[in-house]
């Protein structure tokens, strides 16, 4: 028989091992991409427009397209998602039919594969609303896709704000909206930003749904109605059509770089905005 103590040690070792395996896998992937990708990367690769379907030149237009499309998606989804979270947590009576419906919808939307959204976006935005393959079609589709994440995380963040804050604010004569906008939301910002980071990851990584809605044009998008190819779509096409594996890895490496930069910036703003919260 094992003594309690040794058993504890084994269990502890197991969890440690699990952690180690994850770190190793991540490290290998990133190292592999870095080694394969770094040879393709140069300032020209980053800042030049692609030529000959991406065989030559850089990937600048796809970087711009990625940022553009992600930003527009967020501009659409964040107010809607945070707004419905505020409705659900602050205004809707508990268990009202509408609150239940919104909750159920958000849950269902979260479970639908992205290609289904892509198909819907293609039929509805691209064809029916005649927006064509464009930034706006892609962004609207992405916005629907990330809406559940944003709503859910915002809901949780709002729910986590202590009830005493609300009571104290109202007792000082604040209106409900003053209480929400000046006390509840600022306290919930860190949680809301977590949802936004997750969503950015999803938008930057999406391919299939975007090929169907934003197209795969390599030109520089100049307006919302221009088609665009994001970095992930570019990577997919480079690899799939055998254009250049080196350049696919170079693009992959830059995608990781972009995500790291975005997360860093988000964390920075998080720290700024919540410096007081975290003292508690």
């Amino acid at each position, binding site marked *: 028989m094992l003594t309690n103590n040794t058993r504890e040690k084994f269990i502890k070792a197991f969890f440690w091992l699990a952690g180690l395996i994850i770190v190793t896998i991540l490290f290998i992937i990133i190292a592999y991409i870095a080694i394969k990708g770094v040879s393709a990367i140069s300032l020209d690769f980053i800042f030049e427009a692609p030529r000959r379907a991406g065989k030559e030149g850089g990937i600048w237009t796809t970087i711009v397209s990625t940022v553009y499309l992600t930003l527009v998606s967020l501009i659409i989804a964040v107010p809607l998602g945070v707004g419905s979270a505020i409705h659900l947590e602050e205004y809707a009576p508990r268990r009202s039919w509408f609150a239940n419906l919104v909750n159920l919808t958000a849950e269902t939307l979260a479970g639908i594969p992205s290609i289904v959204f892509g198909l819907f976006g293609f039929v509805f935005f691209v064809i029916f609303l005649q927006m064509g393959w464009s930034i706006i079609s892609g962004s609207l589709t992405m916005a629907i896709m990330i809406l559940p994440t944003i709503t859910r995380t915002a809901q949780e963040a709002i729910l986590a704000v*202590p009830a005493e804050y609300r*009571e104290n*604010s*109202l*007792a*000082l004569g*604040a*209106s409900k909206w003053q209480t929400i906008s000046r*006390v509840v939301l600022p306290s919930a910002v860190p949680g809301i930003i977590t949802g936004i980071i997750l969503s950015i990851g999803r938008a930057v990584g999406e391919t299939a749904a975007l090929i169907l809605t934003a197209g795969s044009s390599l030109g520089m998008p100049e307006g919302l109605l221009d088609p665009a190819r994001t970095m992930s779509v570019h990577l997919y096409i480079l690899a799939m059509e055998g254009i250049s594996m080196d350049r696919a890895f170079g693009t992959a490496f830059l995608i990781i770089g972009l995500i790291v930069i975005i997360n860093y910036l988000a964390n920075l703003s998080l720290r700024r905005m919540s410096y*007081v919260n975290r003292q508690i």
Partner: protein
Amino acid sequence: MSQLKLKSENIKVFYKDFQALYDVNMDIEENRVTALIGPSGCGKSTFLRTINRLNELIEGTRTEGQIYLDERPIYEKDRDVVELRKKVGMVFQKPSVFPMSIYENVAYGPRIHGIKDRNRLSEIVERSLKAANLWNEISDRLNSPAARLSGGQQQRLVIARVLAVEPEVILMDEPASALDPISTSRLEDLIAELKKNYTIVIVTHNMQQAARISDYTGFFLNGQLVEFSCTDELFVNPRDKRTEDYITGRFG
């Protein structure tokens, strides 16, 4: 005899089907400290929260009867709750500072009531912190997070936040229950000073505290106001057998 500030007339409160208060009648005088005592769950907080209409935030709550503030009924269809809560401030059991700086906490009330001028805000913040006996301790770090203050300081900050709105009545719900003895005695000193300018209604389950700081005391039991009189009289010469049992520690 001082002026009548608040008058409660046959106040009944229901949480859904449960009746928490039975016909409470009470006259509260201006610039006096009125203490509410009684075992927990007997309706003290509920009564306090009828005075600033905070109970109506809880779904399914119903209040009957009337409370007059300066002879004006507060349970009236078109009574402005914001204006009422400006006049009737509240300090809760657990000091709950907002996750902002000390300055922003105190400026919160004046800001929501429309004061934007920086100089005026600073003036109000300073005056309120001084009145709450906190200024000397923190005047050099107004911009640091309020959450870093000690429990006793946080409770005084909450009081400063209430004072900044310039209320006439201050409700306190067991404000010392989370404080250490030194902070508690500072709070009691503060209450004695505040009563010069404010009418104070304080819930406490500490009878010595009620005896020390209050002019009038009400004893609640099972949703009823059993006895209400001068503090000295209530503790020395209780009229009701139940009051006597409670203050002599035979139950509760």
